[in-house]
């Protein structure tokens, strides 16, 4: 399911373990955590996480949606943080 997106998906989960982010903020956050990540890889990871119901998009009145963790996603983010040696 995740294929080559496993690693970026873990970083997206960690980046979203806080306030909701739009794609641009998410790109910045993941890059600050993990170094370079491509635009395509980022959205590929997000779409997979959405499909797995780990991440959901929310519309807060802005033109573009924000992304946040679901309950399941928060649990996965905790595990991701441990895996990456970044315990919350």
């Amino acid at each position, binding site marked *: 399911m995740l294929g080559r997106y496993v690693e970026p998906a873990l970083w997206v989960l960690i980046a979203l373990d806080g306030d909701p982010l*739009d794609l*641009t903020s998410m790109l910045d956050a993941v890059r600050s955590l993990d170094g370079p990540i491509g*635009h395509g890889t980022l*959205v590929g990871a997000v*779409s997979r996480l959405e*499909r797995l119901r780990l991440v959901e998009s929310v519309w807060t009145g802005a*033109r*573009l949606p924000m992304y946040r963790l679901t309950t399941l996603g928060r649990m996965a983010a905790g595990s991701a943080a441990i895996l990456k040696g970044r315990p919350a």
Partner: protein
Amino acid sequence: MSALIRLYPAAWRARYGLEFEALLAERPPSKRDLLDIVLAAVDARLVPQVEAAPVARQARITDRLAGAAAVAGGLIWSATYLVGWLVQADGDLSLPILAALGLMLLSLPGTYIVAYARPVALAGIAVAVSLALLFAQVLPWDLILLVPILAIVGVLGPGALALAAARAGTPAGGRWRLLLLTVPWPIIGSVAVAVGFVPTVLPGPVVVASFLPLGLAWIVTGFRIARGPIVSMSTVTTAGGTA
């Protein structure tokens, strides 16, 4: 930048295109990022993560009118055969049947007719030819009656009923069952009348049993359209997000 987005499949673009374009504008991609985007687009086509999903919305006044037309068409259709059978009057049933067909057509306005222009146009031509023949008194009325009936069961019937049912939110399996329960029987009934198997041009039990389900299906579907929610034919895509 839009050329990059066009590399992705349509369903993906519908879901992420706007925000991806904003991302590209706010964080212009490097050469390495461009390669990443191309690879991700190939991946999105090979392993699509976004599926098209129909969108439901509240019924608008146009939907309620369309639903009312479908109900009226189904009622007239059903009543014509029932009354014709019960009364056994030697009257001309072609006008109410044509009126019912017209109302059924009217219940498919707007994007639906645009999306399915060809079958709807064919059915419209069939009905128009039937009307012309009727008024020209070219054919005996029972034969004239068969022309629109065959038109509706052959073209308009399955297509329009399936379309109306889709609009009313009936899932694909339900639409197939609806068609199976309603469409074959008018064909069989029409053929039975045409070959003389049913020895009367007035509706008898066989004809009524053949044609009534179609009218009832239109009534039920019309009510569902009028009540909503309406399932849009144009699809947007979701990947699990909440609006």
